[in-house]
């Protein structure tokens, strides 16, 4: 092999490595951005639940807002399934790898959560505190359907 050929070959290899490095960097960035996005969706769900709870607990009296909160959180639960693509299990996330090894169970738990959120919408429309409290209890259990098996423990 001539020195020129050798030079070209190593340059090509170097370029390939750089391209690979850049795309790996892109993938990591992308995963990080998805993780941030889904955490914000989770937080917004938590915010609506906290506000429904504040009414149910009697801390505030905005019962007329229940339906808006319930609809918003029900919409958010529908956004969740595609926010857990493969490769988003590393970095600053509490998602456990079991999500991707037991995806069927994870998807079923998400469906159950969406159903509980839909019941919350119906309950909110009644303006009846006891009905809202009961629906919230069921919704909480459905959150646990994913959080228990698929979320890292708190440290």
């Amino acid at each position, binding site marked *: 092999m001539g020195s020129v050929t050798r030079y070209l070959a190593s340059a090509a290899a170097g370029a390939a490595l750089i391209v690979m490095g850049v795309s790996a960097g892109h993938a990591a960035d992308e995963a990080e951005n998805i993780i941030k996005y889904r*955490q914000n969706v989770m937080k917004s769900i938590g915010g609506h639940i*906290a506000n429904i*709870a504040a009414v149910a*607990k009697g801390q505030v009296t905005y019962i007329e807002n229940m339906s808006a909160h319930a609809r918003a959180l029900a919409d958010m639960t529908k956004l969740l399934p595609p926010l857990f693509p493969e490769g988003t299990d590393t*970095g600053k996330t509490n998602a456990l790898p079991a999500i991707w090894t037991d995806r069927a169970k994870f998807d079923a738990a998400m469906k159950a959560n969406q159903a509980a959120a839909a019941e919350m919408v119906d309950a909110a429309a009644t303006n009846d505190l006891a009905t809202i*409290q009961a629906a919230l*209890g069921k919704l909480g259990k459905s959150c646990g359907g994913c*959080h*228990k098996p698929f979320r890292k423990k708190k440290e």
Partner: protein
Amino acid sequence: MVAAIAAAADDRVARGAYLLRGGGCVACHTDFAREGEFLAGGGPIKTPFGTFYAPNITPDPDHGVGAWRETDFVTAMTRGVAPDGGHYYPVFPYAAYTKIGRVDLADLWAYLKTVPPVARPRRQHDLRFPFSMRLANLGWKWLYFKAGPFRPDPGRAPEWNRGAYLVEALGHCGECHTPRTRLGGLDRALTLAGTRDGPEESVVPNITPDAETGLGDWSETDIAWLLKTGFMPDGDDVQEGMGDVVEHGTSHLADADLRAIAVYLKSLPPIYNRVRKERDQDGGADEDW
């Protein structure tokens, strides 16, 4: 007359069923993760001392408590001694249950006898030496166990005393929320102040009213609400073992009892004891979502 007696007996069974929820018995003695039958023996409880399996407490004569008399039950609950004379591991929270009143114990027993019997053999504990020696429990008792009923504080309101009874006796909250010494006794100086060495390698939060590291910014309503629904004030659901405690225990309790628990907890001396990691400021995973 007979009807009245029957009604009274029903009443005792119903009270016993309620107390069983308040005592947190269901979550440990039922293996929900493997769809086990009600009270027929629990799933693994991993601790720094080894892995425990709560036994079958259905009235099956061979594998459960079917052959027990009421005095056997009372002795087990209040003295930590089995019908064969052996000493129980303190993972069975008799150090708290010893404070349960005699009427409540009788009602609990009346209810347990009505549970469908299940012939499921008990699973042996899997423990580290020296905890694997059952006789070691005698030493543990000598060091840490004080038998005797709950004594209400006459200087406090009935609601506070009810809360104290539910937290210290029936609910045995300190069994997880109080850190332990290396020999497995409760570290009384840090009562209810949380630990990083909880069951299942969990971090168990500080539930004293310390503003920085405990429940200082939780209202009584927030505490009662968590116990009823499993939701924390920020809208997140409670985690791990406490999720089971809420689902199978406290969510079944009356609002007045949940409030009494909250009143008692908020009255405790605040203890500064940080067990949770400090949260990231940039909205990372440490923010719990």
